[in-house]
């Protein structure tokens, strides 16, 4: 593992991880709508067709159930397929393959078959893409035992977690925030892995902890900076993997800070924030000085009108306000 690194975007980090893993392991294949000739609708798979040829990188019809079904079958026969579903909103079409096939088959065959597959998909609002192209459905897949759910928020995490996801023998749903593809940061060179199920602490604090996922990291860091100027030091933790969830450091942080805010771009009701809040109150109840606060997308279909869309997604100002309210 190399310690050298360069500065690049999350798009570049994912592209690099795909190149390196396909180079390293001939069983890794890639499929999806426009992933080949076009290099992906978000240009994430650029250059892979040229590098590895149509045997390993191929464009599929617009048929999500077919794409993932193909990947499940390929995975069962010993390959390590990576299926791209352009928007996570469309994984609903493939959810039988993901939920009832990929997640279940290793158990229903008593471990005789594995499904080492990655479903890469883009989530998140902000692109003025309306209700059917803007959702964050991570909670759907977190609800299913047998699936791992990963949400990177930095270029380094994107590379390290994707390589681990490809090498993992379980089916992994790998969710990429479509607004963060241009987010820059260090990308470690070479064979860089991050174990699935480990949090990352982005900022140490003294007064409150904000637990944030994927797209919510940057508004949270911005809020932490604002709060710091007001003398409030906020700890910032990104779980990075939602399932399995690295609960222990979250409990520990809750115990130390006593004030907890959880931010996730999925819908607030029955979502990721609710699950994390429940685990915290179960194990850190006696240390909480305030009820656990949650921020998520408003419980409405994401509006097409930009002015309305912005209102439905958590932002830095709301995080500042809620932290201040807790500490008041």
């Amino acid at each position: 593992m190399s310690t050298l690194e360069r500065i690049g975007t999350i798009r570049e980090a994912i592209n690099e991880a795909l190149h390196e893993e396909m180079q390293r392991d001939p069983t890794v294949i890639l499929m999806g709508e426009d992933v080949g000739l076009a290099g992906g609708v978000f240009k994430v798979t650029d250059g892979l067709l040229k590098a590895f040829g149509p045997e390993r990188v191929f464009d599929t019809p617009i048929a999500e159930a077919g794409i993932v079904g193909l990947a499940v079958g390929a995975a069962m026969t010993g390959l390590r397929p990576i299926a791209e579903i352009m928007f996570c909103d469309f994984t609903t079409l493939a959810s039988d393959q993901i939920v009832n096939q990929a997640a279940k088959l290793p158990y229903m065959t008593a471990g005789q078959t594995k499904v080492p597959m990655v479903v890469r998909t883009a989530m998140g609002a902000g692109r003025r893409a309306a209700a059917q192209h803007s959702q964050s459905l991570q909670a759907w897949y977190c609800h299913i035992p047998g699936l791992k759910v990963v949400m990177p928020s930095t270029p380094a995490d994107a590379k390290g977690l994707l390589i681990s996801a490809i090498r993992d023998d379980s089916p992994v749903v790998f969710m990429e925030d479509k607004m963060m593809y241009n987010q820059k940061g260090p990308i470690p060179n070479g064979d860089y892995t991050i174990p699935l199920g480990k949090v990352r602490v982005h900022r140490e604090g003294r007064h409150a902890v904000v637990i944030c996922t994927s797209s919510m990291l940057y508004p949270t860091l911005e809020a932490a900076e604002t709060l710091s100027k007001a003398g409030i030091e906020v700890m910032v933790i990104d779980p990075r993997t939602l399932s399995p969830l690295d609960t222990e450091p979250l409990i520990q942080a809750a115990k130390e800070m006593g004030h907890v805010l959880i931010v996730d771009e999925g819908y607030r009701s029955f979502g990721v924030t609710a699950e994390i809040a429940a685990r915290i109150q179960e194990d850190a109840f006696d240390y909480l000085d305030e009820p656990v606060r949650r921020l998520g997308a408003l419980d409405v279909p994401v509006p097409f009108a930009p002015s309305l869309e912005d209102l439905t997604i958590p932002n830095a100002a709301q995080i500042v306000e809620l932290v201040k309210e807790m500490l008041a």
Partner: protein
Amino acid sequence: MAHEIVMPQLSLSMDKGQIVNWLKQTGDKIHTGDILLEVESDKATVEVESVESGILQIVMGPADGEIPVGSVIAYALAEAEAPVVVSSTVLPSTKTVVDSEPVQITPSSGGNSQQLRRLPSSPAARRKAAELQIDWQQATGTGRDGRIKERDVLRFAQELVESASLKIASSDSIQLTPVAKRIADNFGLDNASLAKLIPGKTKIEGDDVEAAIRKLVGERQALSSPLASLAPIRPAALAAPRHEAMGAVRKRIAERMMQSARTYAPVTLTTEIDASELVCLREALKSDPHVTAAPSYNVLITKMVAKALCEYPVLNASLEGGEVVYWPTVNIGLAVDTQRGLVVPVVRDVAVKSVNELTREMEDLLSRAAQGEATGDELTGGTFTITNLGVQDIDAFTPIINPPECAVLGVGRLRKRMAVVNDQPAVRTMLVLSLTFDHRLVDGAPAARFLQRVKELLEKPYLWSL
């Protein structure tokens, strides 16, 4: 119907109380646990909780002066129930001047948050208060809606510490670890105060400071707590010792126990037995459709003791004058706890009776004895006694021999425990037997052999058929 709310007895010596004020008004909806009023007794002023729910109708107040304990001071009425017409006759009070007009009930306009039993508080605040051993309810809440937060508890603790006025001449001879220094600074304790609080230590650690703070706040709080002056709890609500003549049963018990203790040479042997098979046997009998009344453990043990006594007649004997009298029948007394004291009904000729017969006979005899209805004949003539304290969770004890018998067997509780069976740990139901015998009549070894035989019979019920 209306429930009476009476002047409570708040301390052992209280016989009258003065109502300081009512915190609820006539017509208010009250619930079990609500604080209704404050009462001043001879010791302290105490908040009184409701043990009823309903609509409050107050009949006595601060103007009524000292009110005897037990007097009706209010009623809890059912919804839409007419108020109780209060006349002087319903009040066993020294005051008789009570308005005989029915009380007007006006609907209340809802609860008052100040009277909520639980103040809004955070779990962290309550935990910190428990750590510091202070009453968080006395802290002033500064959170939203007056919620008591952890910082409020810390501030309150700090106030308690500061009010202890510890300032004495400076002491530079002590050393603080960084942790100790931080905690001390948080509580505004200087080196001099610490030297006084933690005497005899020159190197002070965090734990020392925390312990000192706990002690300090504990003391300060005790002084300010309204409960501090309440009398401690005593075994009986008595202002002075009470003298009472001994009942006939108690007298007889005392005489026989003294006789036993004075004349006998008692030795107690204990042994633990594995009663798992016995339990299996009883459970099997209980579930067998052919068995109408399954025998109790008392019956099974009595029967087996009788069998062993037939084999060891010296335990079924008495010392009379210079002679040993071996009894021709085994009559087993069973110690029964009654309201009036211990009685020992006797089951006659146990050895020749079947388990079925014993079940019927003992059930009848023991239940009558427990109610004090056993006849004099039924309470005499025993040759051996069994006493069972298993219900009270006793394992081993030293029972006293019931004269003129030679021995008594104490039965402990049946209890699942880890036991070693074939060099392996196993969960078994164990039971301790305690045999007290008269060493004048029997030596240790034969008594031990008898107990061993009882153990064997109870551990291996299949031996019974032999």
